[in-house]
């Protein structure tokens, strides 16, 4: 298990290297002149050239990549020959000239917002789906099953921005049940935090609930017909034990993989939901960085989100191996 984890971690680092290269070259070789974007419209060619030099964009691409990598491990200094050099400590993901802030700082400021959004939505959707999914499976073919499947179908076919806009329109604008969303930390103002987050959580959980409800139901239904569930019953175990310890334990385990990866994807930013509810999370940051062609920021966010996903992959695999003894990791 330890050896496996170490091997996976090494693989993960290698993968991240490849990823940085891909992301870096992809965005650097994209048409457009990053130096141009550093100053306002009325910009003399001389200033542009000066900035190009300051940012290092006049260097060959490979050198730029080397500096980028070096920054991650050892830190780096931007505009070193100017009177006010910008020191960026390791791990330095770059410096955003449109916002005059370090990329890592920007990401770390946005991350808690996305974290609360993702985790809250995750808890909502997982608990609702598992409860309703099991309920439907236990009442297979009867009205609770049909109702749950119906809700799932409706939820499935509704785009999240549509639900989000409807909720804002009625709950906030029409009925004034909630103040207009504006993010505060849960540690500063828990009530305001909840008032702001409840709608985004619902919107984000909606689609996933539809999916996971169906998945749970089908998984559980399938295990009800497994031979080992029949064996459990034949042993004379109470029906509760048969269902919970034997059927559900096996039926719900595969959900771990899907749920873990979906959570990781959300932690990397929920673009649409964050935009609708003006939450200053990773998703909004990503959208704005693209709108402003903020290359260092785009690169940084892409790296951040991919790292999360790769890491989640490892965690999910380890967790699964822990839950299902048939999966051998060696």
């Amino acid at each position: 298990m330890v050896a496996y984890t170490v091997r996976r971690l090494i693989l993960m680092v290698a993968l991240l290297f490849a990823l940085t290269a891909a992301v870096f070259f992809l965005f650097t070789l994209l048409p457009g002149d990053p130096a141009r974007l550093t100053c306002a419209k009325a910009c003399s060619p001389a200033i542009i050239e000066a900035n190009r030099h300051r940012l290092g964009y006049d260097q060959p691409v490979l050198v730029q990549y080397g500096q980028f990598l070096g920054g991650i491990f050892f830190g780096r200094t931007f505009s070193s020959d100017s009177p006010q050099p910008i020191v960026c400590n390791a791990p330095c993901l770059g410096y955003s000239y449109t916002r005059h802030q370090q990329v890592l700082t920007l990401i770390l400021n946005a991350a808690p917002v996305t974290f609360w959004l993702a985790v809250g939505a995750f808890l909502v959707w997982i608990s609702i789906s598992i409860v309703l999914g099991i309920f439907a499976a236990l009442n297979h073919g009867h009205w609770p099953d049909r109702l749950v499947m119906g809700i799932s179908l409706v939820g499935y076919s509704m785009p999240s921005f549509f639900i989000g806009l409807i909720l804002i329109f009625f709950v906030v604008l029409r009925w004034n049940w909630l103040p207009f969303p504006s993010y505060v930390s849960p540690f500063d103002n828990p009530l305001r935090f909840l008032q702001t987050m409840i709608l985004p959580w619902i919107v984000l959980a909606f689609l996933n609930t539809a999916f996971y409800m169906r998945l749970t139901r089908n998984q559980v239904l399938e295990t009800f017909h497994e031979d080992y569930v029949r064996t459990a019953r034949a042993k004379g175990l109470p029906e509760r034990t048969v269902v919970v310890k034997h059927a559900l334990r096996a039926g719900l385990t595969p959900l771990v993989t899907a749920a873990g990866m979906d959570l990781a994807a959300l932690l990397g930013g929920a673009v649409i939901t964050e935009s609708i509810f003006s939450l200053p999370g990773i998703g909004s940051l990503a959208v704005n960085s693209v709108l402003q062609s903020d290359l260092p920021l785009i690169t940084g966010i892409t790296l951040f989100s991919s790292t999360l996903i790769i890491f989640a992959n490892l965690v999910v695999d380890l967790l699964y191996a822990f839950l299902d003894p048939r999966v051998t990791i060696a």
Partner: protein
Amino acid sequence: MTGSSMAVEPPLLSVKNLSVAFPTEDGLVRAVDGVSFSVEKGKTLAIVGESGSGKSVTAQAIMGIIDRKAAKMTGEIWLDGQELVGLPAGELQSLRGSQVAMIFQDPMSSLHPFYRVGDQITEAISAHRSIGAKAARAEAMEMLRRVGIPAVERRIDDYPHQLSGGMRQRVMIAMALINKPALLIADEPTTALDVTVQAQILDLIASLQGEFQITVIMITHDLGIVADVADDVAVMYGGRIVEVAPTGTLYHEPEMPYTLGLLSSVPRMDRDVSTRLEPIPGNPPSPIRLPPGCVFAPRCKYADRVPDGACMTTRPELLQAAPDHLVRCHIPSEERREIAQGVLRVLTGGAA
């Protein structure tokens, strides 16, 4: 244990007119249709029949693991003086695993993949007896030793996937016998195993049966193995029992044409090697549209011997041909015996 009278003991298990039907979208599936038989204490009854004849459903009905919401079940099942069909679910549950136990066809999928085999056995113990974890484990270990698991100290903490098919079936047997049930139902316990392992498992069941004085119902579609293990044989077809007899009688004096067909389709010791194995032509009936008369009529070579096409219209009863020999066929017993002896003569090359 009931009181020991010198009089003839009633059979341990007695099934009377058992029917199990599943309402489905396509219609009512009559999986078991008026089945009656009984098994004396300590004996082995083999139930044989083609796929879909209702063997497993009969077994599940006796185990009380038929989903009562999904099935209509009528008739009586008497186990050691207790009637099971009308028994409340809770009481059935406490009988399962303690009075009646079952092993299944596929030991790969019958053990839970997530739990250690030892834990699965101790779970069966604590379902019926309050006993400490240590004692339960010791008991499980002892039982695993008895069913022939080598290096039990290590194997007891293995997961099922770490064991071979034969070992898993041994674990299933250990788990079934751990509470010393009176009745063991083995539903095709060797079908999924290698040929070499099959005989070992059958021997194991037979030796444990003697040791624990268990009554056994052995379900199989292989008449070949029946001769070695069973005292009596019940032949099932289309959800009904069509012939019941002591094993020797069934082999040497069968009467029902379906039994003849089965005998012609399996190898046997006294068989003339020059005669081909002859499968019964046609297919078993759909349990949704059972023929109105004799269920075997559409495939029966001898149906036209019965006047007025009664085979197609009138359901034959399971009647006595000899004191312990029941046959369900319209042809008179004398004539059936002649037919059968003719068939057997051909099979054995005139040696019989």
